[in-house]
């Protein structure tokens, strides 16, 4: 309630503040050295290019899921009105599957953007190096092994959903003839979304590797190459 009513600047300030809460910015490195550091840097940039791409897919899927949700409502309403089933089951399945794709393809993006919260009670006061040590140790010894375990158990789960038989052979090249069908009438096959779970975890693991590279680069005094000059603040969603 400023004197002149709604002041457009306030929106801009609020957006900036929210951005500060939610994102970290990347400082461009001045020079890219050769050797191991350069290799690590280029590897990180390569991985993050994939991350950015799947992150963009996620953003687009937000609108697709919305439109599909709307379409679902309209068809349901019309179906009730004309007392005839239209294609409700498929649309509903497609909707949760696309929502699944939205966040599964965004798992790596979420790791990079730091959308997952941290408790910054002590964290905020740590130096960048100490932050890097904490993250590096836990990433390498606990979190990455978890992802490897998850990928291993998802591997057989997802591939059998896609039609691989238990002895490891694929009985036909036409996988869509044998992949797991939905148990619901009019439902869509479950195979592809199960495969996406596997892909999502693999993408997440690649981005965690990129995070580990960032932390190594910070410890090697090359914060500029790590792109973590501004460490991300925690996002609080409530």
């Amino acid at each position, binding site marked *: *309630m*400023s004197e*002149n*009513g*709604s002041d*457009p600047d*306030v929106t801009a300030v609020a*957006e900036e*503040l*929210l951005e500060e*809460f*939610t994102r970290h910015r990347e400082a461009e490195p001045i020079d890219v050295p050769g050797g191991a550091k350069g290799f690590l840097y280029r590897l990180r940039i390569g991985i993050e290019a994939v991350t950015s791409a799947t992150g963009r897919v*996620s*953003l687009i*899927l*937000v609108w697709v*899921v*919305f439109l599909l*949700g*709307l379409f*679902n*409502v309209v068809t349901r309403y019309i179906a009730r009105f004309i007392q005839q089933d239209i294609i409700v089951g498929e649309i509903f399945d497609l*909707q*949760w599957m696309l*929502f699944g794709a*939205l*966040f599964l393809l*965004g*798992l790596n*993006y*979420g790791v990079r*953007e730091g*959308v*997952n*919260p*941290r*408790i*910054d*009670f002590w*964290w905020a006061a*740590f130096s960048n190096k100490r*932050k890097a040590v*904490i993250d590096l140790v*836990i990433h390498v010894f*606990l*979190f990455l*092994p*978890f992802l490897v*375990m*998850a990928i291993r*158990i*998802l591997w057989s*789960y*997802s591939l059998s959903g896609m039609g691989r038989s238990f002895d490891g052979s694929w009985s036909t090249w036409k996988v869509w003839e044998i992949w797991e069908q939905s148990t619901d009438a009019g439902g869509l096959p*479950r195979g592809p*979304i199960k495969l996406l*779970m596997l892909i999502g975890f693999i993408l997440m693991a690649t981005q965690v590797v990129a995070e580990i590279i960032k932390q190594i680069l910070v410890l090697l005094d090359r914060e500029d190459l790590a792109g973590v000059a501004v460490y991300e603040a925690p996002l*609080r*969603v*409530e």
Partner: protein
Amino acid sequence: MMDLGVALSLIMFVVFLALILIGYNVAFSFASTALFFSFIGNLLGVFDPNTLNVLPGRWFGAVSDSTLLAVPFFVLMGAILERSGLAERLLDAIGMLLGPLKGGVAAAVVLVGTLLAAATGVVAATVIVMGLLSLPTMIRLGYDHKLATGVIVASGTLAQLVPPSLVLILLAQQMGVGILGLFAGALIPGLLLSGFYALYALGISYLRPGYGPAMPPEERALTGKVLALEVLFSVVPIILLIIGVLFSIFQGIATPSESGAVGVLGALTLAVLAFYFDKILIRAGATHINPRWRLTPKAMSEAARSTANISILVMTLLFASSFFSLMFLQLGGSDATADFLAGIGGGKTGFVIVAMIAVFLLGINLEFLEITFIVVPIFIPAMDTLGFTIQEKIWFTVMMAVNLNMAFISPPVGFSLFYLQSVAPPEVKTADIHKGALPFMALQGVALILLAAFPGIVEFSHDLFVAAK
């Protein structure tokens, strides 16, 4: 002698808390600790690693859970209203409407906080927007700093309680009570709390001179016809949108995710209409606005980004925490805790008291997501042992949400206080923000005791809104 597995599961919990307290990512802490203890448990012979093969099925269950499909829609609806600047206009209009009353701007903050809570369900955004817009106004008008800051943090935090809120969707999913029932049960308690806040703000301003002075005539930029139009264009449509969304869920016309989809369409429509409303306002003689197209590509992509981020965040946490709770269950921690909680004595009452204290203490440090995903799976077996009905579960969940509200504004570490500090003008002291929260915590405490003493409030709310089947 304690069972080895149970001891391990308790150590696992402590290690998890240690990891998140040093600042490691919460979701990753869940998965990391669980993996470490599955390894240790296997070495000590109390855990069979083949059990891990049930994880993909659990994860798939989370992916295909249609309850969670409501998350992106409600987040997107709120994000559109907020990014297109409609939330600000709402605050403006209600402030001008109630400003001439003593304590009126504070009451306006409560009203807007409630509406934004229902529309956006995101605390950070609500507190920041209200802190940027209303706090300077209240200070200029000579409001007591404690009242001004307290009312903003308390009303902004209502987003956790007033449906359709993200917190309630996730609590419903974890508790297994259904979004519909929980929304219905939480509506009257939420409105009750916001009524308490408004009465307190108006009451103390009347009783104590200088707490909340009325807006002097020269401050009232809008009067008469322009004010009426402004309210008609900025306030009424948002109220209608919220009522429409809730009504269609309650009446069983649409599932929560369908209502959410229609709600998004409504928010987009309002953002488009705002431009034409502004033109009408200008024609009616308004000088306070500058008509602009609200639904810019930037606003839309920012809204999609918040939606994607929150969806990714929720699902990452859900994947990781389901591994953690699987380990907790397999090592015997769940049964032991359930036995402990069920055996406190006092039956359901004893359980509710201990559970509420635990939620409050955890809520000071953790946010609702962690609490929902850690604590609820532990509570459920105890609740089943004690024979909680669905009605009682809804009642308990609503109390949890009120409790989390209280934890969220508890000084010195409540999250809402940090959000407000980040946008408060320099003359507002941190101590004022902390002291300002106390009366509102007391009001929340009163609400919590009322709900505990009269479970009928939640039941009444539930039965009032849910169409008889």
